[in-house]
């Protein structure tokens, strides 16, 4: 049993990890004592010890730079290094959102051009870069739907396919709508008959991920769009899976009224361990007046921030995650139209290659060409007493990050693999070998999987205990004495 240390363990009174200037002007009288704090119990650590501590922790982590990271629906592609350098240029990183527009023309131009590229890629008429993440882009879409139907309060429902990511229904609720689930058919597409029976004048919009979370392109998208629009409702896209479509098909052409993108997925910005992301929302003409504020406009040679006529409002104190936009801009400009199309093609080739190679070993619930990701079911292994989670944990022993498991929820024991285009055939082949060996172990030595992982910094963790007895922080200093050590 190893011991893990935390900051209080390496803190010692009198150590410092900073150097700051002395005050070179007269000191002022302090505010009344009752406004001042008596204690500030923060760690005291020297710089070198601090660096070793965090460096040690970084080595317990697995990132794209560590190895293959086929986490389905997350598009964990390689993040080009020079984008990091450019985003840190003082002219990008050290500018204030409330400086006069004339002093940030470079930033506004970059945003203006990025808006135009995303409009072109999605076939939409207007773009706002304001949403701070994909989920907030979804919220923007839903609030735009609400604004569009503002004179029609009967439209109280948002339809969401049962294959959808959890954010879609959660967003519907945040918009104040009732969320109604639409079943999928046996091919993995939206069940058209069911959709037709649910569609009525109370539906405000259908939110559709395309390709869907099974990695499948719904062949009847034209018909779906027609069914929705015939009843006066809107079609919202979730662009989480755009990585398979760039240069191949456009949301605007297919009848979507709005779609949110994830710059951190398709456009290769680092995921940061869970953010920052960026979730621009793109709209067709019918909705552009409602786009979140601001959008960047151009008058003559001058760029300026503007607010759409009936905007749903602002979504943050500034204008979106600019630092993420800089990286996405660099990615799009590096590749151009042909390069981005190749990205999608290679992502789709890689996924289909895994599908063909692994389908003899893992149940494939929908055997048709997949797009950028492939969903297997671990139900064959389940009969051998091995769960999808066991397979995932065993993959860790082989040095791979596991795929997404148990999502989408409509697939029993789902194993959702998204290789992305930035992986080589050689990497995929070694992943395939590992998956084959795991399938063999499931038959011959299931205990090997139940006890996995064996070679990671920690073994399987007790999540039930974490939830039952929440230990969410350490305490130190007076705070410790005052509040106990619960």
């Amino acid at each position, binding site marked *: 049993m190893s011991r893990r240390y*935390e900051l209080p363990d390496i803190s010692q009174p009198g150590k410092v990890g*900073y150097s700051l200037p002395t005050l070179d*002007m007269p000191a002022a009288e302090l*505010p009344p004592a009752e406004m001042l*704090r008596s204690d500030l*119990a*923060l760690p005291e650590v020297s*710089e070198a010890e601090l660096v070793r501590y*965090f460096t040690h922790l970084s080595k317990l*982590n697995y*990132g794209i730079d560590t190895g293959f990271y086929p986490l389905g629906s997350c598009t964990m592609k390689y993040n080009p290094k*020079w984008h990091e350098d*450019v985003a840190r*240029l003082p002219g990008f990183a*050290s*500018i*204030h959102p409330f*400086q006069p527009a004339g002093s940030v023309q*470079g930033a506004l131009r*970059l945003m203006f051009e990025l808006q135009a590229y995303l409009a*072109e890629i999605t076939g939409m008429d207007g773009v706002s870069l304001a949403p*701070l*993440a*994909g*989920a907030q882009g979804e919220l923007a879409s839903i609030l735009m739907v609400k604004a569009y139907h503002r004179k029609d309060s009967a439209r109280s429902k948002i339809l969401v396919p049962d294959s959808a990511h959890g*954010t879609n*229904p*959660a967003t519907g609720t*945040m918009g104040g709508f009732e969320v109604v689930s639409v079943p999928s058919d046996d091919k993995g597409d939206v069940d058209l008959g069911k959709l037709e029976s649910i569609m009525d004048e109370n539906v405000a919009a259908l939110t559709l991920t395309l390709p869907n979370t099974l990695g499948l392109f719904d062949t009847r998208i034209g018909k779906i769009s027609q069914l929705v629009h015939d009843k006066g409702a809107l079609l919202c896209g979730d662009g989480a899976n755009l990585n398979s479509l760039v240069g191949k*098909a456009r949301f605007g052409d297919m009848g979507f009224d709005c779609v949110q993108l994830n710059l951190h997925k398709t456009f290769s910005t*680092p*995921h*940061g*361990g*869970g*953010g*920052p992301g960026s979730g621009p929302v793109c709209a067709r003409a019918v909705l552009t007046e409602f786009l979140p504020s601001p959008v960047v406009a151009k008058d003559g040679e001058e760029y300026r921030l503007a607010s759409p006529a009936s905007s749903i409002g602002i979504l943050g*104190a500034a204008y979106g*995650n600019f*630092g*993420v936009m800089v990286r996405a801009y*660099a990615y799009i*400009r590096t590749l151009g139209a042909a390069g*981005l199309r190749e*990205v999608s*093609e290679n992502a*789709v080739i890689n996924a289909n290659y895994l*599908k063909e190679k692994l389908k003899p070993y893992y149940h494939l619930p929908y055997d048709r*060409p997949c797009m950028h990701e492939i969903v297997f079911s671990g139900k064959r292994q389940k009969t051998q007493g091995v769960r999808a989670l066991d397979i995932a944990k065993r993959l*860790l022993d082989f040095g791979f990050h596991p795929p997404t498991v148990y999502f989408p929820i409509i697939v029993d024991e789902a194993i959702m693999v998204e290789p992305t285009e930035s992986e*080589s*055939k050689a990497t995929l082949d070694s992943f395939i070998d590992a998956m084959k060996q795991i399938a063999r172990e499931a038959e011959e030595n299931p205990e090997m999987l139940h006890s996995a992982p064996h070679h990671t*910094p*920690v073994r399987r*963790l007790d*999540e039930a*205990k974490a*939830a039952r007895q*929440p230990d*969410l922080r350490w305490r130190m200093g007076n705070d410790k004495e005052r509040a106990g050590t619960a």
Partner: protein
Amino acid sequence: MPSPYLPNTDADRAAMLRDIGVSDVEELFQDIPREFRSASFDLPRPSSEPELKAEMRALSGLNANLDDYACFLGAGFYRHFIPSVVGHMIGRSEFYTAYTPYQAEVSQGTLQTTYEYQSLVCQLTGMEVSNAGMYDGSTAAAEAALMANRLTERDRISVLSTVNPRYREVIETYARGHDLVLEDVPPGLEHLSPDSACLIVQQPSFLGCLEDLGECARKSHGLGALLIVITYPVSLGMLRPPSDYGADIVVGEGQSLGSPISFGGPVLGLFACRREYLRQIPGRIVGKTTDVEGSPGYVLTLATREQHIRRERATSNICTNEALIALAAAVYLAALGKAGLRRVAELCYHKAHYAASKISGLKGYSLVYQQPFFNEFAVRCPAPPARINRALFENGVIGGLDLSGTVENGMLLCVTELNTRQQIDRLIEVLARFQMESENEPSL
């Protein structure tokens, strides 16, 4: 043309397509109806790394950056000293190329640093629990309002009129979804409605003043409303934490803890509250537990609040927690530590008061408020702030926020530890050129 981001060669692709059993990649896109297949789309031609680097460097050069200019602009985003260790630690790619730590066994780095972050936020704000972070201070405030609505089942959100107007707007955007009513409460709190879910106050206020949080707590709690305090974390290096006044939820902008302003994003929303509200918190939370061998480890926990489990009944749709910016905040707070953060806060305080006393000594200038302040203060100027700011800019200074919409010729100035005496003196010198303007024609 080969791409550095596509490792497969033509030969690899041909072999893979053969194994898949198709002759052409287009066959894999057969499910896309022909009428929707894009013929072409128009983007600028591809550029190489050196060409594009040069172009983007030039583009960045069109912006006046705060390293080259003296900056007295705050209003929610603050330029503070960032020790180099912060950039080096968050620049480790094991941290920044990872994603949400679903696989705890290979994500202990992200998980433990998040646990450190939560602990440090609690120590700083005095609150009992913190989540793993939110998008920014304004959305954290909006989520706090929604949480107060869930906890109290009341639909009215009261916002003190001295709260950052952009925060108020974001709260309004979020409130729209739930059809909540926003109520602006003037100072004095006489008009706080008895059916409010919460009172939202900012400390220091948007205009820099230190509010009477004790009074806010008494009034709001007396009516059964929660007290939500928007904090400026650096000020907590010297000011009493909101918990001491009885705050129920504390939110704030975490950018000032080790991250550059970056045109306002990416930044970080702080979110901490009383332990009894744990199951209503939005967003990710990390907890400490043990593995099968009894060794300590960390996991995402209390996930039944979240969208991926609870779907339409989740506390929020948020997925990400600005993890990398939260990591920056953790490294920053650990580096500055007990003495350093107090020092930063005191430097801000003394420098701002030096500047304020000099400015209020100029003819035609006065402080708008007499209340105590931290490092930001509103000044009434003898000329339109836009004009003064233009003159300042020509002298290498980015002036304060133009408040003339609410205060006649008002300007909100901010001073941090990074403003040197020389910079402050230059600010005063340019401001002085306008001091006779109220009596005479401008001399400029």
